[in-house]
């Protein structure tokens, strides 16, 4: 067999990985072996967190709705649980994201809805 040197095959592969990890902190963007490990961890985290993101946002919306609804002290029912219960009873299809966004951008609308439903 003729002699074949490996040349820069490995270097080409590692350059791509290095580019991916280029903004990581300290040794995680400098040392070759750590770079490969960190790229794997980063991609796995991204995968897992894409599903976590959905959960996180839903919790955020619920929190926001609760905060905004809790402002009308005059009403007896100023809680997220009551609002949702009455929304299901009144057959509204609005989801939590829309209600939370409306509470921020168009506060009047949310109070109008709450007033309509909660009785």
């Amino acid at each position, binding site marked *: 067999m003729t002699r074949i040197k490996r040349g820069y095959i490995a270097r080409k592969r590692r350059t791509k990985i290095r580019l991916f990890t280029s903004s990581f902190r300290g040794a995680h963007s400098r040392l070759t072996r750590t770079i490969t490990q960190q790229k794997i961890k980063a991609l796995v985290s991204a995968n897992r967190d*894409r599903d976590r993101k959905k959960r996180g946002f839903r919790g955020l919306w619920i929190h926001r709705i609760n905060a905004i609804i809790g402002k009308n002290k005059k009403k007896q029912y100023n809680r997220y649980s009551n609002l949702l219960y009455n929304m299901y009873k009144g057959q509204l*299809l609005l989801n939590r994201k829309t209600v939370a966004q409306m509470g921020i*951008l*168009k506060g009047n609308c949310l109070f109008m809805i709450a007033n309509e439903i909660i009785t």
Partner: protein
Amino acid sequence: MASAAASLSTICTSFTTHCAISNYSPKTPFSQSTFFPFSRTHSLSLSFQPTLSPRLPLLPPKSSDTAQALSDPQPATQLVQSPPLQPPSWEPGLFAVVMVGGRQYIVHPGRWITVQRLKGAKVNDKIALHRVLLVGTDTSCYIGRPVVTNAVVYATVEEQGLDDKVIVFKYKKKKKYRRTIGHRQPNTRIRINSIMGYENYPKVTMDDIKDEDKES
């Protein structure tokens, strides 16, 4: 067009480049796709800034402007014949909550949204969205239970594109299993033209709330 650009710039300076480019760009579909990244970030930030809602109604329809360019080569006549900036008869602060592709969007006339890919829709198709869950204005609200009857949102398909690439990386440690898959979700960009058909539905106004507060 010059006055239109000036008035736009007074409303919102940070977006003059985007508005100016869309004014003077060549009227081809590719011009829209090159500005897609700009308008995407703008749209994400726009959703948190209610006061800027009348900013993006200007939409020189591509076919009509090219037709005018062919018939009237002078730029002066082309500028005069451009469509008016503000849509004529919307109530102030008109918006709707519409359900498309399993997701709900808050929609203003004149703005665009990105939805899941609508199969069989071609560019410049007119679309009617019937699942309108709520229509609202500055003063009143039409709450759908679950849908506002006879309300329709008319829109035009602007572009059928793909989302940014997402790398799906499956990995099991110590078991020598790793798979790399790239994925681009197809989407459709839609420009909302008008919201109609909600006038006969029972509505709720801020006055009702104030009356109740006074009574109690």
